[in-house]
């Protein structure tokens, strides 16, 4: 993008300043991730010894973990206090169910809000907007009680079943997308004699696939990262999710085995980082649309 009326030298200086600022920002945002990886491949002794007083040497020891110590990962995976395979499976099952539930139910409701004509859909839309603002804490105690009556405390049901009842944020997101789809496509199908469910499944779901993917990814990651839900509803360690287990692991180790803690953290965030790199464009487009057309 070239802007008329600007002097060349001013442009150059500004570019240089921007470049320096960007580098500084990149260091700030990457340093914790680097430090996490760095600590996870050290021995406990290396991580905890006081740094040498010689500045150059200190920086060298701080930045380069040598010799590489990969044993921490094996220790974490074999640790009886952090059964990572079990927690990973628990987390994955919940996150997949949450993604499926959110995509299916929010898509149906967004379709009803935008493409079907019926009394009350305007009220329903306002209800969607209002319920997005409610803090979880208002519902926390009564929901706990209701789930207790059903005998669901200690199971993963409270963590995924509600998402089959159309989380409002995802309805809103899909609605924005449905509004961009022309009605003519639907009318042609009506003339061909297709029923509303068929129209939804055969026309709308394929057309809204990019937005559905956004909902799937967002809800998956939100579920993977959820902390307060598992903290409230899960009672046995064998049902724990990764986020909850990580917090438990930290308090158990009480600041002792930082190397193991960091190795565990790497394993917890790795799937999210992988998903992000596989679907970076979808994430960024999804977040951009929530803010712009809202």
């Amino acid at each position: 993008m070239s802007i008329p009326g600007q002097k060349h030298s001013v442009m150059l200086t500004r570019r240089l300043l921007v470049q320096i600022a960007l580098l500084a920002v990149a260091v700030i945002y990457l340093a914790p991730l680097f430090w996490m990886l760095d600590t996870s491949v050290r021995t406990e002794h290396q991580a905890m010894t006081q740094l040498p007083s010689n500045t150059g040497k200190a920086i060298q020891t701080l930045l380069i973990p040598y010799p590489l110590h990969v044993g921490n990962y094996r220790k974490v995976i074999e640790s009886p206090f952090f059964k990572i395979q079990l927690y990973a499976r628990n987390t994955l099952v919940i996150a997949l169910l949450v993604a499926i539930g959110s995509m299916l139910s929010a898509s149906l409701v967004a379709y009803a809000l935008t493409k079907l004509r019926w009394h009350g859909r305007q009220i329903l839309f306002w209800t969607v907007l209002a319920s997005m603002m409610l803090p979880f804490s208002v519902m926390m105690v009564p929901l706990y009680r209701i789930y207790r009556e059903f005998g669901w405390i200690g199971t993963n049901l409270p963590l995924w079943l509600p998402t089959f009842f159309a989380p409002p944020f995802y309805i809103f997101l899909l609605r924005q997308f449905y509004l961009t789809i022309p009605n003519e496509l639907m009318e042609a199908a009506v003339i061909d004699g297709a029923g509303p469910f068929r129209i939804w499944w055969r026309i709308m779901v394929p057309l809204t696939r990019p937005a559905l993917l956004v909902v799937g990814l967002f809800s998956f990651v939100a579920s993977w990262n959820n902390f307060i839900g598992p903290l409230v509803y899960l009672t046995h360690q064998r049902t724990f999710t990764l986020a909850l287990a990580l917090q438990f692991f930290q308090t158990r180790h009480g600041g002792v085995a930082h190397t193991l803690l960091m190795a565990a953290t790497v394993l917890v965030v790795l799937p999210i980082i992988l998903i992000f790199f596989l679907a970076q464009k979808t994430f960024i487009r999804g977040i951009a649309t929530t803010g712009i057309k809202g």
Partner: protein
Amino acid sequence: MSANSRITWRQQLIGLAFASPFIVGVALLLVIPLSLSFYYSFCHYTMLTPPIWVGTKNYTQLLSDHAFLRSLFNTCLFSVISVPLALAWSFLLALLLNAPNRLRNVYRTIVFLPSLLPLVATAVIWRWMLSPMHGPVNFFLQFPCHWVGGILSQIALAFHASPATVHTLRHLKPPLWLADGKWAMTTIILLSLWGVGQTVIIFLAGLDDVPLELYESAALDGAMGWRRLRYVTLPMLTPVIFFNLVIGIIASWQIFDLPYVMTHGGPGRATLFYSMYLFEAGFQQLRMGAACAMAWVQLIIILLLTTIAFWSARKWVHYR
């Protein structure tokens, strides 16, 4: 299908059927819990025994509950400082990331990635980063502290400050962050800036939407740099700023994960936040009635602040 034709019974039923997941959800997961929570907020309730009606006692007792008042104050402070700070910081980042640059997408990825990580992981990583003895933050801060302390102690000497002051300045040390009651809140506020990636993305999308012609005509009028930012970019972005402001206010009043994992509210009650105390009162002290009362106060505060934001929006948000 004309817009004015009457809605048939069949259409009405089909509409309701497709909307039913949300309608049922609102009834089961919203209306019932909300009414129950409202009722419990006037009860002595431990969940082990049936609720006993106590009137407004739960609410009046909040006024003399020091831990509650502290958590209210802390959350106010956090919200008032962190929301504008995060807005300004993410806007600045968006401007930087919008500048033409060969590595632009790499930088965008770097800033965005941390916002996707579980907050528990963020908390665990940063606790280790900020470890006063072994963390890299204080290791690198000790150099600027040394220089600044040296200069300041010379100035203090010149102004005949007390020897004690000169001594502390000369041995200026980086803060203890989470371990220091005076710094813990500042630390949490600063850390929340590490996760602003999603706000940045929304700002970037907003910047993308500013029509290029506006910049061109501004340039013809001689408006460059700061003036262009002030009179073209900012007004065009006010809807996006408003959106991020509302989201920021709502989220700031619910902050939980980060302080819960990092400090558990400490040292003392320096980082005890509203949602944390609510959780503690409900699920650890089994004062479920009090927890519900707190939740309703929280809801009203959030509603009030959002209403004020929407009301003020008429004065400063420019919709195209």
